[in-house]
């Protein structure tokens, strides 16, 4: 290594889902490379979907990610129902939203307490936090369990739920079964508010960026299953316009496959984007929690994403309670879905951001083309940009400090590297 050159490697990023690494190269006090390297083995979902029946897409694509299978189930259903011209009934839409609340809760709480909080509290993991703060970790586990209870009841099990089908569900729950969750959800809503207060008091690096936020927006609700695609720079499109707005680029030098806007812009998906674009749709207690935590109209410090996630947990519990209380048993758990060959588009808000599916289906009902863009694939570019902007003024810091902050910065996005549908970056830098 030449004098004045530092290479900082994180060979295996811990506390993220999937396998990734970080490569930083600093020459003469100048940052020349900051790369999030993905070495998750490719699994070729878009290829293996070809020739499968259109009704199989939800269960198959759920296997892309064990942490947010509901997001895949919901986006695949949205795309196939768009294809077939089906709009689900209000009770089915409500149950889907409740299922999604469960996933937001279990995924966000897992991230807040077990993956991200250790960074801010200076521990290697949640088990070690529990030795000093057992009540805190126990609260996190109980919150997570409350989210999983919703997914297990509506979906049959927590991971890769089995009860979702095109047009709705195989079986709708009994009202009594949903009401049985109520007491725990009540407790959890209060605990979620405490979580917001707790994480908003953490010390965050002084760092803000001007992001182009992108999320769905729904006329009434904070977005989950449906909405138009909007951005903080004025974009407002139906989901069918996704491909015109965000395109995957193959960068010759790095072999990266990254999504950018047509003009080359880097966009930011996930809780910060949803919050910035839908603050007016927050539920009352979630808004009060956000206000009490001092979150303004938007949050541009990515390290404070842990606070926004906690606000979304409050929202998800509030929504879950509303939906449980309003639930009345109904006759038709799934609408009939008749095949209509063509192209279908679907996007929903996974915990980590907008998850886009597009399928082409032939007259036999077989998939002939599939495109899946996981939120982490889009956020890859913004993660690298964050790293560069954060590092440039801080290069004087010792390697260990830099490494630690970079890992925290990556975890800001709760990157889910397992979502390797087609999301890959290889490090081809050669000395």
């Amino acid at each position, binding site marked *: 290594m030449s004098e004045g050159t530092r290479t900082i490697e994180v060979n295996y990023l811990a506390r993220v889902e999937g396998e990734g690494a970080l490569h930083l190269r600093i020459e003469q006090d100048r940052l020349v490379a900051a790369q999030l390297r993905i070495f998750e083995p*490719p*699994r070729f979902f878009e*290829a293996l979907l*070809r020739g499968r029946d259109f009704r199989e897409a939800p269960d198959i694509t759920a296997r892309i990610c064990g942490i947010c299978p509901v997001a895949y189930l919901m986006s695949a259903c949205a795309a196939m129902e768009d294809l077939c011209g089906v709009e689900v009934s209000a009770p089915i839409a409500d149950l889907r939203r409740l299922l999604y609340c469960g996933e937001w809760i279990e995924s966000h709480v897992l991230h807040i307490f077990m993956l991200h909080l250790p960074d801010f509290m200076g521990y290697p*993991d949640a088990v*070690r936090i529990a030795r000093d703060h057992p009540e805190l970790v126990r609260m996190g586990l109980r919150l997570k369990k409350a989210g999983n209870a919703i997914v297990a009841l509506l979906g049959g099990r927590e991971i*890769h739920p089995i009860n979702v089908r095109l047009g709705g569900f195989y079986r709708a729950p009994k009202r009594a079964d949903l009401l049985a969750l109520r007491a725990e959800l009540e407790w959890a809503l209060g605990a979620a508010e405490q979580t917001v207060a707790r994480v908003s008091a953490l010390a965050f690096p002084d760092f803000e960026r001007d992001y182009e936020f992108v999320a769905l927006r729904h006329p009434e609700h904070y977005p989950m299953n449906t909405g138009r695609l909007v951005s903080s720079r004025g974009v407002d499109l139906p989901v069918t316009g996704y491909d015109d707005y965000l395109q995957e680029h193959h960068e010759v030098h790095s072999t990266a496959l990254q999504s950018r806007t047509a003009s080359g812009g880097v966009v930011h998906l996930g809780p910060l984007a949803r919050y910035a674009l839908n603050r007016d749709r927050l539920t009352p207690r979630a808004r009060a929690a956000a206000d009490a935590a001092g979150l303004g109209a938007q949050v541009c410090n990515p390290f404070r994403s842990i606070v926004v996630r906690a606000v979304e947990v409050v929202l998800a519990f509030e929504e879950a309670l509303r939906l449980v209380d309003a639930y009345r048993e109904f006759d038709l758990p799934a609408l009939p879905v008749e095949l209509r060959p063509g192209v279908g588009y679907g996007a929903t808000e996974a915990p980590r951001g907008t998850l886009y599916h597009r399928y082409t289906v032939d007259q036999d009902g077989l998939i002939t083309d599939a495109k899946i863009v996981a939120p982490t694939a889009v956020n890859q570019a913004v993660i690298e940009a964050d790293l560069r902007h954060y590092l440039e003024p801080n290069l004087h810091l010792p390697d260990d400090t830099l490494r630690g902050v970079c890992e925290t910065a990556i975890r800001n996005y709760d990157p889910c590297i397992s979502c390797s549908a087609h999301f890959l970056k290889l490090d081809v830098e050669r000395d």
Partner: protein
Amino acid sequence: MTAPRLRLAVWKFASCDGCQLSLLDCEDELLALAEGVQIALFAEASSNMLPGPYDVSLVEGSITTAHDRERIQQVRAESGLLVTIGACATAGGIQALRNFRDVEEWKQLVYARPEVIDALATSTPIAEHVKVDFELRGCPVSKRQLLELLAALLAGRRPNVSTASVCEECKARGTPCVMVAHGTPCLGPVTQAGCGAICPAYNRGCYGCFGPKETPNPAALSERLTELGMDRATLLRVYRSFNAGAPAFADEAARHE
């Protein structure tokens, strides 16, 4: 308290992370488990990664790259017991669908620069590469079976995991047979128990996510499914899903090709 604790490592190969997540989903047992077991390596949950050797390795995911084919040898060498968790590790997972197709074509379909993609022509279970001491089935594994496995390891006994069919669990649960009562196609008769027979309980047929049971008879089931109106192409797909690489399912699928 200096009682020797089991040193546990959790490894990931090609997979969705769901089976590892099942460990973190043991919300009620996790902290107690961490008392009885030293989690020496579990990258998804901890940045504390201790070197081997390990008493027990839990392995998630299938072997799909040349690099991983080497890495599993290293994992085996560092592990006392090696236990695979989930359909990817025990049967190659959904990604084993490539075993019946041309992976070079798939690379070109998905990636702009297919020549830089490290991907073997097959996705294979761990046992095809190294000796495996115990296998937990499922896409994903059942939390209950995972806890039984860990409890058994701590007690030094063999895990009590059924190799019977899903039908047995349906009977135990009191769920009427969806195939007999409603004519709903169901893989329950050839699929290993473990999930708790959730699909029939939710009015749908089993789709085989735990893979073939011991001594299954899929040919007989296929006959029945044909009577219910299933055509050959559908039968082929039914056996080629999350356990496509399991021999009993792969052979039956091939009969309908």
